[in-house]
Structure formats: structure tokens, C-alpha cells
């Protein structure tokens, strides 16, 4: 795969992401639900972290907190040198646009924009790339994820795997130091999801930090670190491609 994109240097030394005493509770009429019960976490640049755990264990909650989508009940989060929990409103949005590439299982591409235009949108919104260079950069990213031939199509004309690749290209548009994905392969067949995971591994190998929530068993082949959550607490944190037995969801 050609490497047209060069990674930005991490602005700080030490961990790219660091969380201290993360607690998230939801008030419900029936009482309080603790989604995360106190998480400490450091992730350094270039790590490919797979977050696993049973359904309801708090994976999505953790990712949302790290991406600034949700606000922790207590605790601190520093990502790429910025205290995320202190940001609000449009400063948070602008920060997220430049720092974090997000990929979800649902709501990905805007249906009335072509694939290339979808990839150009983050550059446009955050004004990170001069207008004249956006198209060529989008093409470069699409080539990197292997769907340059789909650039001019509307998302509805793409297969699920192609859509997910387009979404990854879009997440990379502003050269974010961190890529986060919540079950990006959730509705893909195993061959397709394998190639998407390969893509993430590749990106991590290039020095980008990747944090991915997943149920895929095969993630073991790609991730450099596994974090296992259980009932909102850290149940395991192992380095390398091997998952301890019985820890899989």
C-alpha cells in the first residue's frame, strides 16, 4: 500500500492518552448505574489498543470519554497534551476534529456527498488543509484504504466494507494523532473485517495511536495491547497479540 500520508509528530513526549480515576455513572429513576467504576490508563504513540469485554462492560463508555463525546463523572483525561474534560462546545469540536479520527459502526458517510467529498469534509470543517490540496489529499487517503476507484460514487453505491474504508479515510483526513473506532467491523463479514483490521494495524505501524472497541476474535493478530473491561473496571491489560483464555467476549 503506498504511503502518501506522513504522520504528524506527537506534540508531547510520554503517553498520547492518559486517563486517571475515570468514573462514569448514569442517574436512572431506579437508581444510579455505574458504567465505569474507576479506570486508569496510559497509551503511548504507535500502540494499537484493542478494548474488549462483555456487552455492557463499559467499552463504549470509555471510548466516548476519551474522545470527548461524553464527560466523565469524575476523573481526568489528557489526550495529545490537552485536558479533554476541560474542553467544551466549539473548542471541544475543533479539538476533536484535529486530534481524533472517529469511526463508528453506524452513521458514517453523509449520503448526499460523494466518497471523496466525504473525505474532504473534515479538512473543510477544520480548515486544516488548503482548499486546493484537499481533493488530491482525499484521493491519496482513498488510495491508502484501497477504494480510490470509488471516489466519485455516492456512499449508497458502496458495499459495507467499502463504506467502512471510506469512513477510515475520512477519519484520517486531518492527520489526527489518535484514531478511535467503536466496533468498526460490527456489520462486516469476516474476510472484509479482516482487511479493515489490517488497515488499522498498518496505520498503527506507521506510528498512529489506535484505540478500538471490538468483539472480533481475530483482533489478536493485529493489536499490540488488549484492555479487557469487566463491569466498568479494568479486568486485564496485556501487551502483545495474545489474549488470555476466557477473556474473550
Amino acid at each position, binding site marked *: 500500500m503506498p504511503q502518501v500520508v506522513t504522520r504528524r509528530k506527537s506534540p508531547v513526549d510520554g503517553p498520547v492518552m492518559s486517563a486517571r480515576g475515570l468514573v462514569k455513572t448514569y442517574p436512572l*429513576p431506579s437508581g444510579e448505574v455505574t458504567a465505569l467504576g474507576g479506570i486508569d490508563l496510559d497509551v503511548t504513540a504507535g500502540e494499537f489498543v484493542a478494548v474488549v469485554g462483555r456487552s455492557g462492560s463499559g467499552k463504549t463508555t470509555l471510548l*466516548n470519554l476519551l*474522545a470527548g*463525546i*461524553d464527560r466523565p463523572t469524575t476523573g481526568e483525561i489528557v489526550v495529545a497534551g490537552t485536558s479533554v474534560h476541560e474542553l467544551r*462546545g*466549539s473548542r471541544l*469540536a*475543533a479539538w*476533536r*476534529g*484535529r486530534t481524533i479520527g*472517529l469511526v*463508528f459502526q*453506524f*452513521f*458514517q*458517510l*453523509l*449520503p*448526499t*456527498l460523494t466518497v471523496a*467529498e466525504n473525505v*474532504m*469534509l*473534515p479538512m*473543510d*470543517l*477544520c480548515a486544516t488543509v488548503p*482548499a486546493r490540496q*484537499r481533493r488530491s489529499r482525499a484521493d491519496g487517503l482513498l488510495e491508502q484504504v484501497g477504494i480510490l476507484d470509488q471516489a466519485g460514487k455516492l456512499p*449508497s453505491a458502496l458495499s459495507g466494507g467499502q463504506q467502512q474504508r471510506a469512513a477510515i479515510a*475520512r*477519519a484520517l*483526513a*486531518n492527520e489526527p494523532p489518535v484514531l478511535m473506532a467503536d466496533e468498526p467491523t460490527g456489520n462486516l463479514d469476516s474476510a472484509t473485517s479482516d482487511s479493515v483490521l489490517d488497515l488499522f494495524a498498518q496505520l498503527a505501524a506507521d506510528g498512529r495511536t489506535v484505540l478500538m472497541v471490538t468483539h472480533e476474535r481475530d483482533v489478536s493478530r493485529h493489536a499490540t495491547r488488549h484492555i479487557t473491561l469487566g463491569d466498568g473496571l479494568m479486568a486485564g491489560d496485556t501487551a502483545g497479540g495474545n489474549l488470555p483464555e476466557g477473556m474473550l467476549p
Partner: protein
Amino acid sequence: MTALRLLKIARDLWSARTRIAMMIAAIAVSVVMVTTFLSARAIISQEMTRNYAETHPASATVHVPGGVDADALAAVRAQENVLDATARATLQGRIRVGDGPWRTLVLFVSDPGDPQRISRVALQEGSWPPPEDGLLLERTALDYLGVPAGRQVIVAAPGGTPTTMTVTGTVHDGGVAPAEQEQTVYGYATTATLGTLGAPPVLDQIRVLVGDSDGPTTDAAAIDRTAQRVADALAARGRPATGIDIPPPGRHPHQGQMVTVASVLLAFGIVALLLSSILVATMLGGMLTAQTGQIGAMKAIGARTGQVLRMYLIQAAAISVAATAIAVPPGLALGPLLAGQGAELLNLDVAGTPAPGGVYAAALTAGIGVPLLVALVPLVRSSRITVRQAIDAQGTGTAVPGGRVERVVARLRGPGRTQLMALRNVFRRRGRLVLTAGLLAVAGSMFLTGLNTAGGWSALVSRSIEQRSYDAEIQLDQGYDAVRLTELALDTPGVRDAEAWGRTATSVHDPGRTDVAHVYPDEAHASFTVLAPPAGTRLMRLPLTAGRWLRPDDTDAVVLNHLVPAQQVPGITVGDDITLTVAGRPVTRRVVGIVSDFGTLGTAYLTDRDYAALTDVPGHTELLRVVTDRHDPAGHQAVLDRLEHTLAAAGIGIRQSTTIDTLRVALDGHVLVLADALIALAVVLGFVGLLSLASAMSTSVLERTREFGVLRALGATTTRIRGLVITEGVAIAILGLLLAAAAAVPLTRMFGDFLGTQAFRHTLPYVYSLPALVLWTLLTLAGAAAASAVAARRASRITVREALTTL
């Protein structure tokens, strides 16, 4: 806004083009209304002022019995601030064609050599001056009398012999209303014609134009000062003035009514614009809710709320700009057209001057600005959706978290689960509920208020007719013995009851000054009369708004009608003293009551006992009112004709004679235009309201594509989904209906007070039209059922697949 974002906006608009076209149509219709009403109002207002100004209306008319000579007139002209002056007369007589009914004639008389610089009219046919056995008629009088120019008419001066005369031409008088509306014929002739009619050829009015080097003034106080000086100068020459008339300077007699009608039309236009703006806001809101996922996605890749808001604002602006652009040409064309219609009703000539540019600028600003402002509500709300809310909304298609109302509804238990679910939906999207129900409520309350107010007008006319139990009245040329008059009347076949009333023109007296009245030269608009009914009159019962009615033995009491505190003596009330000139003498009386007396002019009621003591010959009265044994206009007229014969045979001179039906026609003529306009506008607004409901329902279905898909996937039947949508639509309609019915109560009252006071200085009776309520109920329920049935069909066709591919 960058090209990429503009591209997205353009494609989004195109992908929703049917919906967008509906929104554009709704806004365009209202902008046409607003532009039309705004420009028509400006044009008529401008034409009314111009038409009136072109008659060179006299600033003041000084009444000098016996008239003045050339020297006296020259002395008047020499007074400071007097720009011009001329001597005229006004004869209040009667006119008929063949043996048709007698009509009131107001004959404006001038000297054959008068230069016609003051109170002038535009000659349309024939020539000036008319011969001594001829007269010119105001152009609207020909249709009213049913006679073409060149034909003969019969004219009678008060107490004079009916004389055959020729209508030798027509004029346009920009200072009088159409003859039909006033039930009065305006004629123009010279002193020679007065002679032919047997009336003294005396010009007893000095018309004065007051002003300075800049031209005539509209300063009423300055006119008053100058007119008083003129009266003093005339008195010094041995010609004392008995009174001065100063009509509101520069204001056409029907300016008040015109402004009211135009403002009401405009108000309805603005409400329609607001309604359609809310409609657009509702629909845009629905579309945005369906785009929650997209907004979330944009936010996730770094879009700020402001950026998202700007994108959607541009969409809304595109809609309102397009609508306004479409609306301008028809608005430009319809404004002058409507103005032309109005001008005809007001007897105005339209010069074709367009409305001032500011009017169109205002219409444009409203057309573009109002929808945008209203749309801000849902746009801001949707733009603020966070990534988190967007993720949560994936399941249900809504990003609005549930509140207390929703939880209460959620806990409801009942038999029909579908109905319950529909109700829960209604409350879950509270924002849209408020908008749709509010929209229906506004449209409905305006519909009801319009029809209620139209009903109020009719009630006002009917009530004022009911308050008068007499069928016909005859004004006499002078006082005659009351007992003899009543006997003569009762001896006439067909007369069942008769009363003789004292009647004389009066004016408010201010010691040391010549009396000033604010009456127009037609001596009707804003005139002031004293009436003295016999004690315990059977022919009139007026509702008191303050104080009490006269007692038979009252000798220092007066009851005023509602017009006096409004026109003659602003703010006068029960307990105050009022000094009037009656039979040439000042008399001071204590106000004991104020009566509501729609359908007449400014009136002060005295007891017959008091009146007898004030007039020269006690027991003499000038007005005969009778009840006939017939109940139709023709019958009333027949008895009136017989009575006139009886009186003429007895040597009694007649000034005017009218049946109660003439009064009704005149009142209807003043009121029906308003009532009809209100009904038409109510219908238009009702239509906009129902259109809104339909759009809201279809938007609601669009918004919940995913939800219906999920229901389908769960095995919900077509019937079930339809039931859900229709129940929801009808629930919203019922809520809107209740709100409308409640809001119409204070609105009708406020509107009636405003309109009535503006147009006739009399609040409207409160009428809540039950047929209107029933009609609106049926319309909304049927409309809601139909609109939601269409939406329901679409909902029941949503497939699971379609639901899942919607972003």
C-alpha cells in the same frame, strides 16, 4: 461558507425537493398576501390624501346667518394666516326620480362667479355653472338614484315645493363617500338654483383656507385660532358667526375606516406569514430530526455547532429567498389591483402612483426575515445535538430526551395499546407537538375570531336597529306643535304609533368663543345634534354604558351618546357639566348618563320638558317618528309616502324623510366590507392551518422512518401502524382545537374592541359564533384524519430495509 458545504446544502435541498417546494409555496402565498396588503394600504392611503387634498378642503367653515358682502369677505381674506376664503351654502334637501323614494340630498351651493379654489370638485360631464333649473351630481349618485346624466329629477328644499330639475352633468368629489354607502346624494349648484327651489339664495358659510407661506396647515390649533379671529372680525362688522366647523385637517372623512380595514388585512397577512413560517420551521425541524445521524457524523469529524447551524440557516434562507422572489411579481400586480377595488369603495380616483419603495423593502424583509427567524428555533435546537445524542438517537430516530410529561404518559395504562403508543409519541416530540398544535391553534383562533368579529358587526347593526322601534322618521323644516303632529300621523292609514321629538343641531359652547364643531362640510360626519324624546318614549331604548337615563322631571340633565366623549368633548363623563348652544343660547347641563348608540351621529338627549323651555315656542318639535303596520321595506316606504302627503296637505314642511331600512343599508354599507374581508381572511387562514397539519403529519412520518421500520420488523401490522399515525394526528388536532377555541375568547374581545373603536368609536358586541366553532371543529378533525391517513399510508409502506438504510 465553503464550496463543499454549499454543495451539500444544494444536494440536500434537491433530495427533498417536493417538501421544499411545499414550504416555498406556503411562504410565497403569505408573502404575496403581505406584499399585496402592504402596498394596497400604502397606495390607498396615498390616494386618499391626494384625492382629498385635490378638493382643496376648507380648513374651517364659519357660519354667518344672512351671509356676508364682498367687503366682509375681503376683510376675512385680509386676516393673518388666511390663505383664501369664499362664501358658500349647503342645502339639506330631498331628491327623487319620478315617484321613486325620496333620498337625502346635500346640495353644495356657490356663487356662479366663484373661482372654485376652495372645496372644489372635478367636473366629469356637463359644464359649470349649471343652469338655474339644473344641478350637477356626484358621480356615485347616478347609480344610487338609477338615473343617467341629462335626465330629470325632483328636488325639494326643506319646506319647499318639489321642483323638477335637470341633472346637467357629473363631478367627482374626492371628499365624500359613495352615495350608496352614505344613502345620500351629493349635488352641486349655484345660488340661481337655490332661487328656483324657493330657498333663500344666501351664501351663509365662509369657507376659509388657513396656512402660511408653506401652504395650508394641518395644525388644528392654528386653524382654530385663525377661525376664531375671522369670527371676531365678522362680528366687528355686524355679522356675528353662529358657529365654526373645523373637520380633522387633511383627513378624508373615511380615513379612520380605511386605515382600520387596511391594518386588519395586513394583520391577517402577517399572521399568515407567521403561520407559514412556523410551518416551514416545523417541516425543517422534522427534516433535521431525520438528519440527526448526519449532524452527529459531522460533529464527530470536527464540525462546530456554529458551522452546522450556518449550513442549515443557508438552507432555510434559500427557501425564504426563493419564496419571496416568486411572491414579488404577483404581489406587485395584486397590490394596485386591490387598491383599485378599495378606491372604488371609497370613491377615490387612482393616479397610478406606485407604493413607496420602502413598502416593498418591508415586504421583502418580512418575507425573507420572518421565516428565517422562526426557523431559528428548530435549527438551533438541531445544530446543538451532540455526538452522544446522535448515537443514542440511532435506535428511535429522535435525539430529544424524554421529560416529565413523557414519563407520566409512559406510565399510563389503558385498553388501546396503539392509541397509548401514539399518545406517547405525541408527547415525546414535545417541540414538534407545540409547533403543530400551536400552528393549528393560531390558524383556528384567527378563523374563529374572524367569523366572530364578522358576527359582531352584524350584531352591532341588528342591535342598533332593534333599539329603534320606529319604522320611519320625518325631519321637519321647523318646529310644529307636537300634539298636532302626532294626531296627524295617527290619523294616517298604516301608522300604528307616533311620537314627536325635539331635534336641533347643536355645538359645544366655550364662553367668549364662537362654537366649534368638528363636522365635515356634508354636515353629517362628526355632526352634533340635540334630541328630546317625549317622556317615557316607546320608540327607542338605548343601553347605558354609564350613569342613568333621563327622568321625566329632569330639567338640568343631559344624556350623551358614545360619540360625544370620543369626538365632541373628549373624555367627558357622568358628573361633568357640558355647555351647548341650543336655539342660539348657551345652556349648561349636568351629564347624568352615557348611552351606546351605534348608527347615529353625536347626540345629546334632553327631556321634552327641558327642551320646551329652551326653544322659542314651547311644545314645538322638529322630528316625527312613526311605527307602521307593515314589516317590509316597501311597506315602510308606502306608509311614509302617505304620511308625507298628510303632512303636506296640513301645510307642514318636510326636510328629510327616511325609513329605518335606509339606516340599515347605510350601516351595512359601512360595516359589511369589514365583515366580508374578515370572513375571506378567516377562510384563507383556516386553509393555511390545515395545510400545516398535513405537512406536519408527513414530516412526522419522515422523521420516524426508522421507528416504523423497527415496528415492522417487530411484526406490527399495516392497520396497527396506520392507527398509530392517525391517532397521533387526531390527538394533535384536538389539542390545537381546544387551544384555538380558548384563545378565540379573549382575541374576539380584543379584536372587536380595537376594530369597533377604530372604525366607529364603538366596541363590538361580543359574539362567539357557534356555527364557526362547529365548522372549524369539523374542518380540523376531517383535515387531521385525511392528512394523517395519507401520512399513515406512507408509514405503513416503510420497509425494514428502507428504515435501516436511512442515515
